[in-house]
């Protein structure tokens, strides 16, 4: 298991992968993010928990540039990426999945992942067809094996089931040597078996690849993360190790209280 590393990686004065300072996002009158500070080390696996509308997805959108933040600073591996367009952040090794699958219905599964591999290469405008031994195609097939979609590689994305689409979302995020991945509720709507597969995929990621995972299911979240951030009303209100969070009275009152009515 990867459980041997986390403690050492956490305690070390490791390099910072992601550094947020006073990140704010306003939608008209609504303050979706209120001065969020967050620091995630290289290779760290972090869970973000919080009730509906807490601002978790908005935080991801601010980091990736899908919807840039209103104010604040975001650094990625030391570089200020606050003003960079989304695609430029991706080329630097950032990846994400979406809470609501964002896929290409008219493409095959394999071509989708192939594009994900090519998107971060210089050949993204190539007018040549990929050869069968193309490095991007080979990587795409490897990734499809990892997420268990290789049998469906020639299917159109539009015919996939919900669970398969969620796996394809993951596949897109794994393509092209990511350095840091943002997973937005990857387990939502999955069967118990699919959840187990997901946990296995996350735990099998190379040690230098860190991630933030948004997850409503406390059990899943605590199994795949070494540090937990709790959000509420656009703010971070508690951070700690899974054990600390689980034992925290306030968290139990708010989080579990909500969950079990």
């Amino acid at each position, binding site marked *: 298991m990867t459980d041997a590393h986390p403690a050492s990686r956490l305690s070390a004065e490791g390099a910072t992968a992601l550094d947020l300072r006073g990140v704010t996002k306003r939608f008209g009158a609504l303050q979706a993010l209120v001065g969020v500070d967050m620091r995630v080390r290289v290779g760290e696996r972090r869970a973000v928990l919080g009730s509906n509308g807490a601002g978790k997805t908005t935080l991801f959108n601010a980091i990736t540039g899908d919807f840039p933040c209103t104010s604040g600073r975001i650094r990625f591996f030391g570089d200020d990426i606050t003003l960079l367009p989304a695609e430029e952040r991706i080329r630097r090794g950032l990846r994400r999945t979406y809470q609501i699958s964002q896929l290409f219905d008219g493409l095959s599964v394999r071509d989708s992942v192939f594009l*994900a591999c090519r998107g971060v290469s210089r050949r993204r405008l190539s007018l040549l067809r990929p050869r069968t031994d193309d490095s991007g195609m080979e990587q795409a097939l490897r990734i499809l094996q990892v997420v268990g979609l290789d049998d469906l590689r020639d299917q159109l994305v539009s015919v996939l089931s919900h669970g398969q689409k969620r796996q394809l979302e993951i596949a897109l995020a794994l393509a092209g040597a990511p350095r840091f991945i943002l997973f937005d509720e990857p387990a939502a709507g999955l069967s118990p078996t699919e959840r187990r597969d997901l946990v296995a995929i996350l735990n099998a990621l190379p040690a230098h690849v860190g991630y933030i995972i948004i997850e409503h299911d406390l059990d899943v979240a605590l199994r795949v993360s070494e540090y937990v951030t709790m959000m509420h009303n656009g703010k971070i209100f508690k951070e700690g190790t899974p054990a600390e969070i689980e034992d925290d009275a306030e968290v139990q009152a708010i989080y579990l209280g909500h969950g079990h009515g």
Partner: protein
Amino acid sequence: MSAASPRPAAGRSLPAAAPPGDPSVGAHLGLAAALLLLPAVASGFILVQIGAQSLILGLLALSLMVLAGYGGMISLAQITVAGIAGYTVAILGENSVAVHGFGWPWWLTVPVAITFAALGAALIGWISVRTQGIYTIMITLAIATAMSLFAQQNYTLFNGFEGFAGIPAPTLFGQRLRAPMAFYYLCLGVAALCYVAVLYGARSTFGLGLQATRDNQRRMRALGFDTTAHKVFAWFLAGIIAGLAGVLLVWFQGRISPGTIGVAAAINILVIAVVGGLRHPIGPFLGAVVVVLIQTFATDVVGAARHNTLIGITFLVIVYFSPDGLLGLWSRFQGQFRQNPLRPGDGA
């Protein structure tokens, strides 16, 4: 067990098949043979008025199909792009109106004309890619209208309302390219080249990326693609096709004027593309043949005043029965043809 259970709208081919790509080699070879042998049986009138004209309009509709079918961008400015090439040929080459006509040789005017057309297309694309759906149609219609009006009012460059006439097609190795058979083969060659290039390019990294951008632009950006650049490049490439068509068009007509690039011409291209179908690059050529046949012969059948009505009705009927144009009708027909023997459940 019923085979007719989760089948979506009639006629969609089975999703398990390879994504829309290359139809059979046999069909292509048959079509190529028929087109190559056409001059053996057809008169010069048919070769030029039906054959060459369909191929030129088909090329223009193909440039629209690339943008609309693969990129989801419906452009009404493809005739404008062709016009850039056509006017360039008229101005830099020869014409009989004694305005400009620098007399450059064709091997210089043609590359320059196509470069201008492609760059102009990229500019139009750059202006319009910020918009989507109906707004792309509106902004490109506005550009097409503005360009036509500008050409009409500008005498220094475009020679105003009159435009240019007496623009000759070149003579190559003693062969006049505008002679019926030569011109037909010229248009066929260019059309075949563009058609094959589009078929091939549709499955290139760029082509897949264009289709992916059409399906989900936000996700494309989250994969590292600059979607604006991607779409502008598509406009540039489609502009090369439209530019080639523009050169052939001005050689075909021997003249070019604001009417050539007017709104009616712009809409004609859209009608051709939609009648034919936007899902496969053969569609625009099918549509062009149908529209050119109606335009040429309807005058004899229903009278000159009503041939546009006939085109309108044909358009309506085809689109009503199949949003995918003639291509859609064809695949629906094929679908039924294939379906029947595959229904074990129904027979019992």
